[in-house]
């Protein structure tokens, strides 16, 4: 989403908002971003919990829900206590400071751009929450619940907050001019790479490769994908921080990319295996949403068709071929879908960004090859930082919780029963 700087810029460009002038509250913009925040919030405990829960095996359905919900709870508390401050206060180029601890200095009359600062804080909070929750997709079926809790606290603090600062908090990436409208680097590449790292450190699930690990419910997963899609309009169009034409354009390309990617994944799978699965269609939706995220406020309709089409094929290829080839156990494909499609989206932004949508944001095909390099740098820097940082965070977590992984018997029996003493359905 816009850096504050960006937000001001927009104000000067938009007839309506400018009618109010910078830093005066606009009730229409505020109404939209309050709702957008609620939509993005819903993505984690409802959308993602269903999407991931339905993909995990039945014996781990509730555990997957629990990890997702608790990730949201922890991250949202961390954010308002110290996370926001680390990401958005101060002028540092690497990380923020602690001036805004407990949101100190922000009140009901504080305004950022045309919305209350509290709304900006909350909107950003929902991004921190879903980012760490996305990591779950790589680790379900085998991680200790206690380890997950400790990991969440450390990862949000030491990995998410600095990267959010780089891109949206006025840090070095924004100074460099990297384009990341709604979180290609900050959210998807970050979560996807972290997921891969921790999946490798956890090791494969018992029986992985030998037995088919069918999703507990493709029905729930598809409902989850539908709710994620719904929420994603808040995620991408909300990142404009105003109710204007750019938000509308972001909405347009978001929907188009998701739809195209679902069709592309379906086609690829149909050709590849002879049958189009609903799991594939649902995964395609998410792949398309991920890919358009960094580009949402910068690219036009035709680019979104292409971005989505490539995302669908790339996603299918990475979860059905690449993963098997490489042999890592990315349980629900957080890396395959979020990591790889996030990288594609960040690159695509460097290719297709057009000034016609956001003044001054141009990609290779609009005469600005430099942007592509900036995107590449930002991608590599994100991968490097999150990869190394996550290794350290996981390593500390392992120490603090005496191992990351449940014992073999509990894993075989299932985490719902062994960790929570419950079952998903009691028919």
């Amino acid at each position, binding site marked *: 989403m816009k850096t504050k700087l960006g937000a001001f810029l927009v104000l000067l460009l938009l007839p309506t908002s400018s009618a109010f002038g910078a830093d005066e509250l606009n009730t229409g913009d505020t109404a939209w971003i309050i709702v957008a925040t609620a939509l993005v919030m819903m993505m984690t405990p409802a959308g993602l919990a269903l999407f991931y829960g339905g993909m995990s095996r039945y014996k781990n359905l509730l555990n997957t829900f629990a990890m997702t919900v608790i990730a949201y709870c922890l991250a949202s508390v961390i954010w308002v206590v110290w996370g926001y401050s680390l990401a958005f206060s101060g002028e540092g180029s690497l990380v923020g400071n602690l001036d805004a601890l407990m949101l100190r200095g922000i009140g009901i009359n504080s305004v950022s751009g045309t919305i209350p600062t509290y709304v900006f804080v909350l909107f950003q909070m929902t991004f921190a929450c879903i980012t760490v929750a996305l990591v779950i997709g790589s680790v379900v079926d085998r991680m200790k619940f206690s380890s997950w809790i400790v990991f969440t606290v450390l990862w949000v603090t030491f990995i998410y907050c600095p990267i959010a600062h780089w891109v949206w908090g006025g840090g070095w990436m924004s100074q460099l001019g990297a384009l990341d409208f709604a979180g290609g680097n900050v959210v998807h590449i970050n979560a996807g790479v972290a997921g891969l790292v921790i999946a490798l450190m956890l090791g494969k699930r018992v029986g992985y490769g030998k037995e*088919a690990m069918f999703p507990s419910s493709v029905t729930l997963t598809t409902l989850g994908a539908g709710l994620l899609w719904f929420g994603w309009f808040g995620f991408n169009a909300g990142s404009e921080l105003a109710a204007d034409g750019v938000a509308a354009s972001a909405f347009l390309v978001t929907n188009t990319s998701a739809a195209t990617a679902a069709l592309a994944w379906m086609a690829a*799978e149909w050709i*590849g*295996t002879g049958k189009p699965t609903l*799991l594939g269609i649902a995964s395609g939706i998410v792949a398309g949403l991920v890919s358009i995220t960094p580009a949402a406020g910068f690219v036009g309709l035709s680019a979104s068709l292409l971005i989505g089409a490539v995302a669908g094929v790339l996603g299918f290829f990475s979860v*059905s071929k690449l993963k098997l080839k490489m042999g890592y156990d990315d349980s629900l494909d957080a890396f395959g879908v979020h990591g790889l499609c996030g990288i594609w989206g960040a690159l695509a932004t460097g290719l297709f960004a057009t000034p016609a949508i956001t003044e001054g944001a141009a990609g290779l095909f609009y005469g600005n090859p430099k942007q592509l390099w900036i995107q590449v740098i930002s991608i590599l820097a994100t991968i490097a930082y999150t990869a190394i940082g996550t290794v350290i965070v996981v390593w500390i977590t392992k120490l603090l919780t005496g191992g990351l992984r449940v014992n073999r018997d509990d894993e075989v029996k299932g985490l719902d029963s062994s960790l929570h003493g419950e079952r998903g359905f009691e028919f």
Partner: protein
Amino acid sequence: MKKIEAIIKPFKLDDVKEALNEIGIQGMTITEVKGYGRQKGHKEIYRGAEYVVDFIPKLKIEIVVEAARADSVVDIIAKAANTGKIGDGKIFILPMDSAVRVRTGERGADAL
């Protein structure tokens, strides 16, 4: 007294039930089972890979009858459950000592 256990294709249940009613068989117990045999199972697809599920849904029908009626019951079931395709199932005939009706305590043939 004999116990007849028939493993049949699920969608054949109604045909079998009706055929048995016609010869006056009023009682039976059905169990959902999974069968493994010559019949190949269907394929399930997950993340682009195909998995053959070689356990196929079947129904097990258990009927206890007087020894004298066993053969006719077996024939009826065999006819009603037949599609001529692999996987039609089996009928097993087992010996029995006796039967009791819980409600009345009746024993033997009266219990059926």
